[in-house]
């Protein structure tokens, strides 16, 4: 067996090594340009008391999570029990950003629907969903038209933003939170920020 005949095999093993490493990476995880930048401020109607609004500034001084969700989002159902457990253990305050509750749902056409009607429908749907699945949120706000979502660069639901005491985004988690990502990524960062502050 001459050494040169082993070249194809070695090349292939090199390639396989990269592929194996590639499996541990997530190509969809695009670094957010907002990391370490002040979170875009917003003032939106609260889901529990729609006549009142909530602004991002109100969380100043706390390390907290902004979780983007919607009742039509299937993957949200996957992470929801974990959020509920987190709330029971009071790990970290979570504010829900209910994103395009009605117009994001493909089964409903909003063509010609007035904004008030859409809002009423959104409130009803979102509340029902939370009463069915449990409400892990300190509070939720309604992003009916998705404009705040755009400011945050949301391109899929669920997404979760970790925001520090000064209102800066420190981490962005794309897709459902898993027990593992909570343990290895999110909570260590939360602890670190709490200590830093």
């Amino acid at each position, binding site marked *: 067996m001459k050494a040169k005949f082993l070249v*194809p095999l070695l090349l292939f093993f090199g390639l*396989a090594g990269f592929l*194996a490493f*590639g499996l541990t990476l997530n190509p969809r995880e695009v670094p957010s340009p907002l990391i370490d930048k002040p979170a875009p401020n917003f003032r939106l109607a609260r889901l529990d008391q729609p006549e009142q609004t909530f602004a991002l500034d109100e969380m100043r001084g706390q390390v907290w999570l902004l979780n983007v969700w919607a009742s039509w989002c299937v993957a949200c159902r996957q992470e929801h029990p974990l959020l509920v457990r987190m709330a029971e253990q009071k790990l970290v305050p979570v504010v829900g950003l209910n994103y395009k509750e009605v117009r994001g749902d*493909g089964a409903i056409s909003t063509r010609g629907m007035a904004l008030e009607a859409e809002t009423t429908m959104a409130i009803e749907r979102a509340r029902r969903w939370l009463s069915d699945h449990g409400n892990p949120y300190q509070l939720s706000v309604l992003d009916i038209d998705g404009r705040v979502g755009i400011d945050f660069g949301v391109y899929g639901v669920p997404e979760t933003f970790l925001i520090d005491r000064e209102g800066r985004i420190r981490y962005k988690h794309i897709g459902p939170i898993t027990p593992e990502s909570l343990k290895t990524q999110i909570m260590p960062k939360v602890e670190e920020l709490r200590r830093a502050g």
Partner: protein
Amino acid sequence: MIPELGHFALILALVLSLVQAVVPLVGAHRNSSALMGVGRPAAQGQFFFILFSYVCLTWAFIQSDFSVQLAASNSHSATPLMYKITGVWGNHEGSLLLWAMSLSLWTVAVTVFSRHLPDAFLARVLGVLGWVSAGFISFTLVTSNPFERLLPAVADGRDLNPLLQDPGMIIHPPLLYMGYVGFSVAFAFAIAALLSGRLDAAWARWSRPWTTIAWVFLTAGIAVGSGWAYYELGWGGWWFWDPVENASFMPWLLGTALMHSLAVTEKRGAFRSWTVLLAIGAFSLSLLGTFLVRSGVITSVHAFATDPKRGLYILALLVIVIGFSLLLYAMRANKLMGGGSFGLVSRETSLLANNVLLTVASASVLLGTLYPLFLDALGLGKISVGPPYFEAVFVPLMTPVVVLMAFGPFLRWKDDDLLAEVRRVAPAFVASVAIGVGSAWAVDHLTWRTALGLSLAAWVVLASLQLLARRLGERAGASAGSRLRSITASWWGMWLAHFGIGIFIIGVTMVGSLDRHLDVKMKEGQHAELAGYTFVFRGAVDADGPNYDAARGNIELIRDGRSLGILTPEKRVYLAQGMPMTEASLDIGVFRDVYVSLGEQLEDGAWIVSLYYKPFISWIWMGCVLMGLGGVFAAADRRYRRLAARDAAAAVGGRAGAAA
């Protein structure tokens, strides 16, 4: 109950594939014809059970049995029957089952059409195919069970991805898989030859028709996929260098090299090492393509829901299959050296250059596809590699391939006189450059790219015609009919496929240089102009379908004051997933397509309309049809059947001799 039967049948198929993988190989090793004989019934039984399993899954879709998870996520009670059936493979689990089924179909074809092969060789081929099959069926069963139940069942399904609800998608995946998986036969022949140590020309001759047929399927599959992308995605592109397209294109490139290398090995006994490596390579790239699509290491519009466990399993499969093959190659390669010698100027040399160039082209596509992964793995950041890279690399690599492709067939085997041959084709070459530059100027697009493309196309066409004339002139004095008949089917196959590439290049060049595009806002009665055509918007109406709502635009196409008819692009919203889709409308012609798609409706009631003028785009498909037809001719050559009969007679004679 039926899904459980299907699941059980799949398990039985796995058991049979393991029998097929082990027993014939042991038999070949011990020279026991009883054990070797097990391969054939095991392969056929395995096919029966996979087919049964597949039918059960299809049944769940047709019956809208939404207690089956796969049907619930990929079908809907209102989905048209056709798309319920095709929805079976419009997802990860079902497409794996289709993969396994086509592998099994190929294996059965081998058991039926390769009766003339020596028993030990056939036993080894079936054994190798059995291993591959066991790998894929177990992958399906362990990580991706298509019969998973969803209890309690949902009221209605999520429907098939609307992009896949299209006639093109009915045939694209089966064709593509038949091509992908078909290279497993060439692969199994090569491995069987390595295992037996019998690496003479016979092995090359046996695997040639199989390779060619697999290549025809792959060519057709890629062409149909490209056609689908062209009219379904709604913006008139036909090739995107998307990772999944590349995954099918890489085996195509190596498979093309393999077909040519096999010709040299069969005729001259040379290039055996090349041929074995290409056979391993073409199939390895098919597997790699499956890995890329299924594992999610690369983002792509084609990627199905991904799961790291699946990626790991298929990577392990990849490492075992390819690693073992290349190790075997390394151990046996010294036996592959030698073969017929040849001069510097000969048909062999031109085919060697063809091998090298196509391999490099395939490697460069691989590099471009995996480059984002390499950088990410090395922590150098996230990038995406787009069409500019591929075009920059591809044009310089393919230009010499095309020049050689038309010139090579003029050369004789072993040795030839370069000057004499060059002198012979020089007029055609000069004429091609003149035609290319002249026509680029005539269509008012004198860029080097257009001139190069058209010159290459003219060169292929002219040289092909000259080659035909020379071939017909070889038997002076014979009647025209007998001269035509004296040409073999495989020669016609070569000629047609090469000619098809010329046609293909014309299409690619013209549509790349001269297409026109315009996005306009249109209200009823308004008109727009593009490339000499007038488009009059005659309003939009509701045109709801069984599982979607739609608005249909009516756009009258007018040329020189004469109406060419009404184009009816649609904007659809598929209800189950709420997914908007554009359904383009085309006026197809030999020299141009006119292509209209409907965009959003604005608040003032006007519509955004995209208008495209696509010159010569049909020539791309015509070129592919000619290439595929060439492959069919080549595979149908009578020679293979004659030689098969001889081999069979020899095998029987040998057996009789041994018995005596």
